[in-house]
C-alpha cells in the first residue's frame, strides 16, 4: 500500500511538472503582452522595456521557466516587493501581492463551499439512491428517479439566481451569501454559506442519487449477492454488506473527480453567489495576463485533482481486497 502511494505521489509530481511547462508555453503563446497592461497610458518603449526587465520577461522562455522552478522550490529574495519563501510563485503582476498568500486567502472560501456541499450531496444522494434501489419498481422509486432526472438537468446559473430571488431577496428567509471566517464566528460562516450549499448539493445530489440507484441495482444482480441470499442471509444484510460495498466503487470514482474539480475552484458557483474563491481568482488571472497568479492557480487546482485521485485510489484498496492484495 505504501509503495503504491509513493509511486502515485511521484507520478503526480511528474504530471504537475509537465503541466507547469504546458501552462508556461500556452501563456507565451497568447498574443498579449502582460507588460502592456502595467505600462498604462503613458507607455513608451523605454518604460515598456523597463517593465519587461523588472518582470524578467526579457529573458528567454527556458530561462524564465528555470527561474520559476528555482523560486518554487527554494524561494527567492530577488523580488522588489520583498522576500518570497518557498513555495514561491512570485508576485501578482496585477495586484503586486504575493501569489501564495493570495491563494491561501481565497482557499478557505472554496474549501468551505466545496466540503460543505460535498458532505450534503454525498449523504443525500447515496441515501435517496439506495432507498430507491431498495424499493425498486415502486411509486417511491419512480418518483425519486423522475425527480432526480429533472433536477440534474438544471444548471447552477438557473437554480442559483432562482434560490437567491425566492429565498433571500423576496422572503428574507436566509442571509445573503457571503464568506465569513469560521474561526471568527461559526454562526455567520454557516448562515452565509447555506444557500450556496443547498443549491450546489441539490444539483450534485440528484446525480449521485441516480448513480447510487443504478450502481446498487447492478450489484444486487451480481451472482455473489444471489449466493449470499441462497445462504439465508436476510435481504437487509445482503443489501448493506454485500451489494453496498461494490456499489461504492463507481461512485467514489466520480466523487473524486467532482471534489477535485470543485476544490480547484467552482467558477460558476462562486460568480453566481459572489463568493471570492479560487475559481474567481483563476478567471481574474487570465483576464489580467497575470502569469504568476495563473501558474499558481493552475498548479494548485491540478494538485487538488491529483490529491483527490490519490484518495480515491486509496479508497478502492480499502473497499476491494483484490486491489489491495494485487
Amino acid at each position, binding site marked *: 500500500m505504501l509503495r503504491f502511494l509513493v509511486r502515485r505521489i511521484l507520478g503526480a509530481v511528474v504530471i504537475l511538472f509537465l503541466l507547469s511547462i504546458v501552462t508556461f508555453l500556452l501563456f507565451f503563446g497568447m498574443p498579449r503582452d502582460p507588460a502592456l497592461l502595467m505600462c498604462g497610458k503613458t507607455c513608451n518603449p523605454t518604460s515598456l522595456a523597463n517593465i519587461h526587465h523588472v518582470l524578467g520577461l526579457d529573458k528567454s522562455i527556458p530561462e524564465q521557466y528555470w527561474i520559476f522552478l528555482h523560486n518554487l522550490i527554494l524561494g527567492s529574495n530577488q523580488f522588489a516587493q520583498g522576500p518570497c519563501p518557498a513555495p514561491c510563485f512570485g508576485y501578482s503582476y496585477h495586484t503586486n501581492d504575493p501569489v501564495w498568500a493570495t491563494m491561501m486567502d481565497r482557499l478557505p472560501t472554496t474549501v468551505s463551499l466545496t466540503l460543505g456541499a460535498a458532505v450534503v450531496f454525498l449523504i443525500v444522494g447515496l441515501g435517496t439512491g439506495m432507498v430507491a434501489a431498495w424499493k425498486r419498481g415502486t411509486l417511491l422509486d419512480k418518483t425519486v428517479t423522475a425527480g432526480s432526472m429533472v433536477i440534474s438537468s438544471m444548471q447552477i446559473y438557473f437554480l442559483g439566481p432562482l434560490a437567491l430571488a425566492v429565498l433571500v431577496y423576496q422572503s428574507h428567509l436566509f442571509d445573503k451569501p457571503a464568506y465569513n471566517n469560521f474561526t471568527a464566528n461559526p454562526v455567520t460562516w454557516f448562515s452565509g454559506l447555506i444557500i450556496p450549499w443547498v443549491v450546489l448539493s441539490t444539483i450534485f445530489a440528484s446525480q449521485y442519487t441516480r448513480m447510487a440507484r443504478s450502481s446498487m441495482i447492478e450489484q444486487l444482480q451480481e*451472482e455473489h449477492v444471489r*449466493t449470499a441470499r*441462497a445462504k*439465508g*442471509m*436476510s435481504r437487509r444484510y445482503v443489501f448493506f454488506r454485500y451489494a453496498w460495498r461494490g456499489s461504492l466503487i463507481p461512485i467514489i470514482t466520480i466523487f473524486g473527480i467532482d471534489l477535485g474539480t470543485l476544490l480547484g475552484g467552482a467558477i460558476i458557483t462562486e460568480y453566481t453567489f459572489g463568493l471570492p474563491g479560487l475559481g474567481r481568482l483563476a478567471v481574474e488571472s487570465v483576464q489580467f495576463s497575470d502569469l504568476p497568479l495563473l501558474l499558481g492557480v493552475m498548479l494548485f487546482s491540478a494538485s487538488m485533482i491529483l490529491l483527490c485521485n490519490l484518495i480515491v485510489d486509496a479508497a478502492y484498496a480499502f473497499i476491494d481486497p*483484490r486491489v489491495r*492484495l494485487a
Partner: protein
Amino acid sequence: MTTLTKDAGTPAPADAGAFLSVRDLHVSFKTEDGVVRAVDGLSFDVERGKTLGIVGESGSGKSVTNLTILGLHNPQFTTVEGEILLDGQELITARESELEKVRGNKAAMIFQDPLTALSPYYTVGRQIAEPFMKHRGASKRAAWDRAVEMLAKVGIPNPKERAKDYPHQFSGGMRQRAMIAMALVCDPDLLIADEPTTALDVTVQAQILDLLKDLQQEFGSGIIFITHDLGVIADMADDIMVMYAGSAVERGTTNEVLRAPQHPYTWGLLNSMPRLDSDLGMPLNPIPGAPPSLLTPPSGCRFHPRCTFQDRVGGTRCVTERPLLAPDRASACHLTADQKRTIFLEEIKPRLA
C-alpha cells in the same frame, strides 16, 4: 424420486420417502417481448441421500426450477404456480423470513462459476461462517472454527491460514471447494448443485465430482445435480430427469435413462455426443434445428418440430396433443412403449456402439 406417495402438507418421516417434492410447477417471466414460460408443469421428488440429476440444454428451465425452489427468483417479474414441499413445508407461499430459515440451512446451493458466486469483499472463512452464525446461532469464534473445519474437509490445504484469504487468492478448483464447504456448513438435507463443474478443467472436475459423492456419503444430503453433460450425470446421479423447453420429457433411474432411453430427445442427446470409445467411422447424429423460443413454444409436444419419429405416431397427435409424463419411470412421448423399445434397440443403440 421413484415414490409418489405422500399427500401434500403431510410432513415426511425423517428418513423415508421424498424430502423435496415439486408438483406441477409453473414459472413464467414477464419480459418486454411477452411472457416466457420457463417452467411448464414440472413434478419430481428428491430423497435424502440420493442424487437426482437434471439434464437439459440452455433454456430448458433446469436452473430456473432450482432458483424457484429456494425463492431466489425476482418476485416482481415472475409468476410461480404449483407446489414445492420441502420436508413438509410449502415454499411457494412461504414468507421471506421463513424462506431465509430454509436457505443455507435445510437446503443449500452451489453455483456454476465460483469466481463470481463468491463475494470478492470478504474472506473465504467469513463467507463460510456467516450461515452457521445465522442458522445455528453460533458465536463468531465457533463459526470461524467451523469454517476452518469445513475447509479442511473439502481438501483445502492449510485451512487455518487459507480461511483468512479472499476468493481471488484461491485457484478455480479451490474456490469451488470453498463453495461446497459453504453449502455444507449447516449440514443441509438438500443440496442443489447448478452446473458446479462446468467452469472447471476436466481433471479438477473429476476431483470435485468425487468429492461431492464422498461428502454425500458422510452428510447424507439429497442432491439435485443440474448439468448439460450426460457424462457427468452418469457419474453422479441415482435418478435422472431430462428436461426440454420447460418440462420433463423423461425420467427414471440413471441406468434406465442412459441404457434404455425412451424419449426421442434423450436419443438425440446420446447420439450427438462423441464418446472416448465411440466408432470413428460414423458421423455424429445431431438433433436437427434449435431449441424453441419459450415466448411462443410449439403446440402439442414441444419437441415435435425437431423430432424425426413423428410419422411413427401417425396423424397430427404430436402437433395437437401434449404428451404427459407419468410418475415413476416414464417418458412424455406419444410413441407406444413397444415402439420406444424397438426404435432404441434397432435404430439408436447400434449408432452408440
